[in-house]
């Protein structure tokens, strides 16, 4: 694919690359890798979500969720029955996130596969081998454009503001909600006047021993510029042992996953006509952290739950 084609495709995904300084050797190598990855990412299209396919896969997700992760999802009744809604979750478990699996199954079973439900994911996840089926599940590249399209269509949209920063946090910080100060989700909800439903999960960070986000390493290698990766996580995970990057995923330990959806927050109703982003951010973080603390207090043992 030509440079122009790659740029056009990246732009369509909402991920036009930022101008950067002239890279060194490592940067050029990674830049080449980035171009290859960009070609692997089809243009995100909400129409790729396939309810029949989702329905066919619900039994295998149910087996995985019920038997392996002993998933428990509470508060789905808090999610508005119809219309656009922004589901805001804390994210755990590395590149293969069991909390998303458990919640996606529960949402599809509860509301039916007919209800449009999209999830925003990092480009890298969508380009990983064998994960093409995520697109049929409604996973699209995380970009403002895709988020706008999803909410304008009246769909439920699941976002993880903490993204790669939060999902690779050390295991001993597993009971901490950490969005890294990212407030884009609030602007999104305000812009489209949709309620925010916080979705709090626990257990994902026990599916491996996450040691470090590796932010310094990612910067040193220029991954932040080349691949939009601000982290290069280091963990001990099956089957690799020491796992740097988690690019090929890992076999998660069968940690019990518990997810709780909280009552919707109608921003204009609760924060007035001129809402303050910092105030809303603190409110959402407090609610989610309190819920996570409650879920953590229920757990007796790591992994077992």
């Amino acid at each position: 694919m030509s440079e122009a084609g790659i740029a056009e495709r990246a732009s369509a995904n909402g991920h036009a690359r930022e101008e950067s300084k002239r890279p060194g050797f490592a940067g050029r190598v990674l830049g080449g890798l980035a171009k290859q990855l960009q070609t692997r990412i089809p243009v995100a299209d909400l129409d790729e979500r396939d309810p029949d396919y989702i329905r066919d896969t619900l039994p295998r997700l149910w087996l995985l969720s019920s038997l392996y992760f002993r998933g428990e999802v509470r508060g789905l009744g808090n999610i508005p029955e119809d219309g656009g809604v922004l589901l805001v979750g804390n994210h755990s478990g590395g590149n293969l996130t069991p909390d998303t699996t458990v919640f996606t199954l529960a949402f599809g079973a509860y509301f039916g596969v007919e209800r449009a439900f999209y999830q925003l994911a990092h480009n890298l996840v969508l380009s990983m081998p064998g994960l093409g089926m995520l697109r049929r599940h409604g996973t699209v590249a995380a970009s403002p454009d895709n988020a706008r399209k999803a909410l304008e269509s009246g769909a439920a949209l699941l976002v993880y503001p903490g993204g790669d920063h939060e999902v690779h946090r050390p295991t001993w910080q597993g009971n901490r909600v950490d969005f890294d100060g990212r407030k884009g989700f609030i602007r999104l909800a305000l812009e489209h006047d949709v309620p925010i439903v916080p979705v709090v999960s626990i257990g994902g960070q026990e599916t491996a021993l996450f040691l470090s986000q590796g932010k310094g390493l990612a910067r040193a290698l220029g991954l932040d510029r080349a691949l939009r990766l601000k982290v290069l996580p280091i963990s001990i995970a099956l089957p690799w042992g020491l796992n740097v990057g988690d690019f090929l995923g890992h076999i998660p330990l069968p940690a019990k996953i518990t997810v709780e959806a909280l009552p919707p927050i109608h921003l204009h109703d609760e924060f007035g006509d001129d809402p303050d982003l910092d105030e809303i951010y603190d409110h959402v973080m407090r609610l989610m952290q309190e819920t996570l603390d409650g879920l953590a207090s229920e757990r007796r043992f790591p992994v077992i739950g």
Partner: protein
Amino acid sequence: MRIAAPIEIAAPPEAVWGWISDPAKALHFFSGVTRWEVVSDDPIGLGARYRMLLRVGSAEVGGLIEVIEFNANRDMAWTSVTGLDQRGRWRLRPRPGGRTRVELRLSYGVAGAGIFGWISERVGAPTVRGHLQRTVRQLKRQVEQEETRRRAAERRRARASA
């Protein structure tokens, strides 16, 4: 996968029917059911539609169902419109002494889910069977208690008029 749960209740079919045909009472005896909402204009009868959910494992499964057979005091059957494929039936048959044999049947599955569908149906069967058996036991307790109260009220009235 088809599962049935039979039981005999010490009450006439009319008393049992009053419970199973009333959607407002479903949550009082239906084990594992987290939702049984009327979504049609007519809450009871042929063509009535409900949104029902049953907790099995990590998910609440079910969907929109429609009543396709409604023979008062004998049979009520439903089938799924959306969600999990399912057919359910309440079958009431009178027994001597004012008793009723009640059977709750449920067949379920996901067409097109292949081997994982087959496995999940069987893995989920003990949970579903447990829900159905608890449901008929809870129905029996509710109906028989109501019958006891009704007879006690009749005796009180008889004593008062004597």
